[in-house]
């Protein structure tokens, strides 16, 4: 088994055994939908309002997992072990980011159908929207992993990650909500600007994967 696969498997196994992040994320998302139902006083949503409820809810749910991403490493000394191990430390970045993408995909597999059931008239736009969400997840995982490491090693802990991440994630919200506005429109999906948003999300993913790859090593130095 490659070191990357070992690290990723360890994270997924820990999550499966302890269920520390995923159930909380799903529960948070579903409860947020209920809150929005009363906050907006609407029983159906479409277009920009649908995207505006769904995308930020997924993002806030993602923050729960991002806050917990390195807690085990900090508490159980995992950081010291990866420093001692004869492997490239950037592999930890790759493994954590991949784990985060997997958590987010699972979250979306639960939360998006529930959102559709609650609010959407038709699910026709959801398939192309899944591609948008996947690109959003990769960007979220790239910045989330870097900022989570910083926050975990600081004394402010859970406070710092949302504070830094929310402005950093604005381009992802712009891209995902911009595409969602057309894909979730009342009269069926409309592909206006689809390529533009795909391009923006792809560019974001590329830039922050590179930044994470280049800087992660310095976060683990001691």
């Amino acid at each position, binding site marked *: 088994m490659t070191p990357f696969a070992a690290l990723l498997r360890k994270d997924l196994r820990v999550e499966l055994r302890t269920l520390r992040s995923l159930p909380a994320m799903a529960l948070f998302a579903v409860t947020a939908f209920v809150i929005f139902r009363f906050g907006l006083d609407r029983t159906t949503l479409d277009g920009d309002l649908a995207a505006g409820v769904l995308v930020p809810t997924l993002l806030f749910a993602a923050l729960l997992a991002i806050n917990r991403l390195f807690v085990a490493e900090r508490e159980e000394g995992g950081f010291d072990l990866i420093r001692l191990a004869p492997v490239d430390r950037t592999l930890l970045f790759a493994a954590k980011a991949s784990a985060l993408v997997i958590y987010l995909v699972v979250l979306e597999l639960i939360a998006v159908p529930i959102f559709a059931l609650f609010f959407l008239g038709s699910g026709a736009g959801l398939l192309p929207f899944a591609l948008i969400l996947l690109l959003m997840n990769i960007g979220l995982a790239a910045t989330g992993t870097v900022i989570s490491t910083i926050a975990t090693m600081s004394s402010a802990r859970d406070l710092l990650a949302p504070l830094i991440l929310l402005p950093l994630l*604005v381009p992802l919200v712009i891209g995902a909500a*911009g595409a969602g506005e057309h894909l979730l429109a009342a009269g069926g999906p409309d592909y206006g600007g689809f390529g533009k948003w795909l391009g923006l999300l792809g560019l974001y993913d590329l830039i922050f994967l590179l930044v994470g790859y280049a800087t992660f090593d310095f976060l683990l130095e001691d």
Partner: protein
Amino acid sequence: MTALQSITLRRLAIATLVVMGAGYALAFLYAPQDAQEGFAQKIFYLHVPLAIVSLLGFIVGGIHAIRHLRTGDPKHDARSYVSIHISIIFGLAVLLTGAIWAKSQWGEWWEWREPTLVSFLIVFLLYATYYPLRYAIEDRDRQARYASVFAITAGAFVPLNFLAVRLAQPYIHPRTFSSSGGLPGEMLLAFLVCLAGMALLWVTLVWFELDAKAASGNLAKIRRALEASA
């Protein structure tokens, strides 16, 4: 060394004063009154140079951060910190002058359809987290390294964010200037001199704060030596 530096700093301060004075004299006395906006348009000579210098300052902070991670020299971290610090102060002035300009031009204190202003707010909110980040990490080396990673991440974010907000506009709001090329010659000259003055002001302030930091560091060192010998 320090004496030489303080002479250079004094010269720099005088140059800043002269260029800024000349710039604003040109802006008020030489450049023509804007036909549509009248006198209120003069804030352009303050707001736009502030914004350009502040954004470039954030990028400069990111470049110093890259140098710091490469060399591990705390000097570069200090430069990165001070660049970002001064740019945040400039950024606050950008948001205030932007709001005043929006009020005079569109009758509203804030205009969500003006992509540059909104992008700037997001960048400002991101950099505002730089202080809590630094103060939440006690170990000095780690604080410097983490602050550098933040400065690089945020520096890469600045241009991307401007692109994203621009794409999000259903249409581009009518703007006073599409680019500096659209300005009449007299206005452009006044604007460029103001921009140079603002850039000089930024460099002077950064230099001054770095000097002050170095001086207080030396003072602490001398004090410790005195206490040890006493």
